[in-house]
């Protein structure tokens, strides 16, 4: 279901320009240039510690960067966190799903989903609840709304996290290894929900180790190694005929087992 990977003539929703990040002496991101078109599904792959999570966390300002420039839907992020106004706007437009779900354990499932729309968007309680119930139904857990997160399985919790992010009606969704903390039998249900979202045209940037899913859903796959984008291409091209030795090495290690 590729929708083509040629750069869209429409304005990109994300553009990263020579982004550099350091953790002390460690150079985590090196001259990252990356452009995402509206509606595009981009999967970022790479070894652990390669900087792929850091990369997407820079897009919604959970990580600061030291040099370069990021623009998200017309809002400009500056180095060293010098852009709190834009950051706030970006975060209301960009949803994120985390590896560890990060649901709010003191709130019921329904209240997890309604909190941000009510407090940030100023929706009425009724509107927020209506949206929450629609989204929970969409990810297949309408009957769990009155439970607390700890009463749900990992797969259900991650689907709540997805509904929670979607309730803000984001223009872009970031996924930071959304299935890495799940038991194997629950990975499928989360990937199904993401697949459905991609089909509906959501712009998505996904960090994952699920190569089969990447091949199936991605418009473009980006391979990152030691903080650098080594190669990016349509999934068939990247998985079947990687051009760089580093990509070949990485793929031979992850695809073998």
């Amino acid at each position, binding site marked *: 279901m590729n929708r083509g990977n040629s750069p869209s003539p429409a304005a990109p929703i994300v553009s990263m320009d020579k982004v550099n990040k350091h953790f002390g002496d460690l150079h985590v991101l090196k001259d990252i240039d990356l452009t995402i078109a509206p509606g595009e599904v981009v999967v970022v792959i790479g070894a652990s510690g390669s900087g792929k999570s850091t990369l997407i966390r820079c897009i919604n300002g*959970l990580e600061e960067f030291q040099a370069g420039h990021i623009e998200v839907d017309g809002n400009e992020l500056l180095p060293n966190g010098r852009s709190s106004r834009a950051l706030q706007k970006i975060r209301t437009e960009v*949803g994120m799903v985390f590896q*560890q779900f990060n649901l709010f354990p003191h709130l019921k499932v329904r209240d997890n989903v309604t909190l941000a729309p009510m407090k940030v968007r100023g929706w009425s309680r009724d509107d927020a609840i209506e949206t929450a119930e629609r989204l929970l139904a969409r990810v297949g857990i309408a009957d769990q709304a009155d439970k607390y997160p700890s009463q749900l399985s990992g797969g259900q919790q991650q689907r709540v996290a997805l509904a929670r992010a979607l309730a803000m009606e984001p223009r872009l969704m970031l996924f930071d290894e959304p299935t890495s903390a799940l038991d194997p039998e629950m990975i499928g249900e989360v990937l199904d929900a993401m697949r459905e979202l991609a089909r509906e045209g959501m712009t998505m940037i996904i960090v994952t180790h699920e190569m089969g899913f990447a091949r199936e859903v991605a418009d473009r796959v980006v391979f990152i190694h030691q903080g650098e984008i080594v190669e990016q291409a349509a999934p068939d091209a990247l998985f079947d005929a990687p051009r760089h030795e580093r990509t070949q090495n990485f793929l031979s290690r992850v695809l073998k087992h």
Partner: protein
Amino acid sequence: MDVTFQFDWEAAFASIPFLLKGIPYTLLISFGGLAIGFLIGILFGLLRISPIVWLRVPAIAYIEIFRGTPVLVQVLFIFYGLPQILGGPINALVAGIAAIAVNSGAYISEIVRGGVQSIERGQREASLSLGLSRTQAFRYVIWPQALRRMIPPLGNQGIISIKDTSLFSVIGVGELVRQGQVYIATTFNALEVYLMVAFLYLVITLSLSFALRLLERKGLVGQ
């Protein structure tokens, strides 16, 4: 040697009405002081983890000073020392409440700091990623969770402070111990009366423990 001492139950029970008159003072000093101490603790506990140095340093100084000196010295300083600066006497009850407030406030600051810092980073990140401001993230996500984790150590502090008020007999507040001392001065039943005093403290502290256990059980839902 005379070993025919008899515990005088009648004298013990007879002292109770007089001792009970001390309970309102004990409760007022304890809970008045703790309520103010809780507010101080929230304020200084949060200042303690502020990224801004000139907010953090005064908070650390306050905590170390009032945690590192005896509450008895603090109440003596307030009751006998401060009037020399203020130029007028301080009511003993007010001095007692103030001493419990600043003393428990120092400990509660550390409880607040520990509670807030115990909340996983991901909670804040998830809140911010949804567009909540840092203040909203604290108010709706971090603080309610931290408060639940703070209940057991707050209960400890409450019990300690209730018992600390027994020291304030030295400034003449008519709290429980003071009432006991006054009673014994006329009846000489030290054994019976102090046993009753101890028993009444136990009733207060056990009630608090029980109330907090209920609160904790209620608070544990969803954790």
